[in-house]
């Protein structure tokens, strides 16, 4: 899991989380680390009830932003549970190499019991990311991804 610095104090981040009460689609494409990290930080550190689009956001896209498996875990376990209506999460064109370590930790009973279900998610777009090549070469990686899909069984599109 990634640990972000303190919540950014720049007004943009407060605006993004508080002033968009009807937002359904939020997308970030081809952004640099220094841009996307504070955005994730703001989403991560804002309490669910304070996110103005908590009950309206349906589609979150963070594509071509150099996200890795730590970012993926943070998005899945910390950010997505605050957005219960999100049915589509697109993380295309990033650098997610593996879900194995996340799944290994997930299978530890304590963590599994407190993991969010993210039941609304139907579509988790990972293509293209290295993990989808790695599952063809590494049986353990394939098993981990299948285990992930078994745990989060509402996903039908990946």
């Amino acid at each position, binding site marked *: 899991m990634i640990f972000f610095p303190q919540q950014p104090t720049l*007004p*943009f981040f407060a605006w993004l989380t508080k002033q968009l009460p009807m937002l359904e*689609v939020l*997308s970030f*494409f081809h*952004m640099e680390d220094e841009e996307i990290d*504070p955005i994730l930080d703001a989403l991560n550190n804002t309490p669910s009830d304070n996110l103005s689009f908590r009950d309206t956001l349906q589609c979150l896209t963070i594509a071509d932003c150099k996200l890795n498996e730590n970012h993926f875990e943070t998005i899945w376990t910390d950010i997505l549970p605050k957005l219960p209506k999100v049915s589509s999460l697109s993380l295309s064109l990033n650098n997610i190499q593996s879900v194995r370590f996340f799944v290994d930790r997930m299978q530890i009973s304590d963590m599994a019991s407190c993991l969010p279900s993210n039941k609304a998610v139907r579509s988790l777009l990972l293509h293209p990311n290295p993990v989808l090549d790695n599952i063809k070469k590494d049986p353990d990686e394939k098993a981990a991804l299948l285990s992930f899909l078994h745990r989060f069984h509402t996903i039908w599109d990946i």
Partner: protein
Amino acid sequence: MKVGFVDINNDVDENFRIDDFDVSHMWSYEIDNDDGRIKKLTIRGKDDLDYQYELPAIVCHLTNVVEICLHCCEKLPVELSELPCLQKLELVCTSDIIFDDDFPFEMVLKKLKILSFKY
């Protein structure tokens, strides 16, 4: 769809070719066929400090605008709050907006459904 140019600076001679046109200075719009009001506005630019601009507050008079796409804009006006129909805002090459200390936090986009950032 028909596309045309207005040569407001009288720069163009008979040898002008469409390929010579510099889109970095271009803005475009779509209008509502019923009332002629602007419903979609796009302002293009270059990823270059010389081409950055502040979106003027007068944009709040575009009361029927539904979509705005801004390239290389460095500042947004709080008056965007006054656009009653704005549903989509697309910001391209606008990292200065994210890190603007004077970003208008009080700007509430009540009808906005789609927000995208691209670099």
